[in-house]
């Protein structure tokens, strides 16, 4: 299974973007992002709190649709998924 993880703005600066990942079957959104972000402490701390939960302000999307934090630990990733993780938007 191959999925793509895209970080944006400050998260991109800390962790890179368009990262191909090969999660194990049964991996959830939360476990996937934790594993990738965990490669760099500053990036991990920008996205997760001390309990390993997403900071309240972090936005997570799967294939262009928002996923609530409460569901990220149960929503399983599938082959070809595009996962996006970003801070609050600031366009306009």
């Amino acid at each position: 299974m191959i999925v793509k993880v895209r970080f944006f703005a400050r998260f991109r600066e800390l962790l890179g973007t368009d990262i191909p990942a090969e999660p194990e079957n049964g991996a959830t959104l939360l476990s996937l992002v934790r594993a990738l972000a965990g490669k760099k402490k500053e990036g991990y701390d920008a996205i997760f709190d001390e309990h390993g939960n997403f900071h309240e302000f972090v936005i997570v999307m799967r294939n262009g649709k928002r996923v609530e934090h409460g569901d990220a630990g149960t929503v399983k990733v599938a082959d070809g998924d595009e996962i996006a993780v970003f801070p609050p938007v600031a366009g306009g």
Partner: protein
Amino acid sequence: MIRVQTEDVDIGALITAAKKPGTGAVVVFDGVVRDDDITEMELEAYGDVAVAEMEKIAHEATVQFRLLHVDIIHRIGRLSVGENILIIVVSAGHRPEAYAGSRYIIEEIKKSVPIWKKELTRDGGRWVAGEHGHGAGPR
């Protein structure tokens, strides 16, 4: 026309194109890079999702305010002070709908379209905080 792009646009041409039959008012919003002691501004977007979200906002505004035409062009990349960031052109039969529709679109863009701005300064740079911190983002 709903776009995220690096190039600037010809606002005059957009105004001309917005004058559909029945138009009594055209309102243009032009957001520009302000001189907040910065050298430049860098803008980044989650492109496909940003365009889809702006299309949704344009549709909502068209229905709610009976708009006759909507253009939204949000620029990305590196922009200098005074350059256009966001151009919204709307037309309607009367000015109340045109003004209200334009205002609705810009406020919704700030809430939910995945675009970010970094102010570049002589000392480095700083990301602009969103106005809708907690829970912001596409619905």
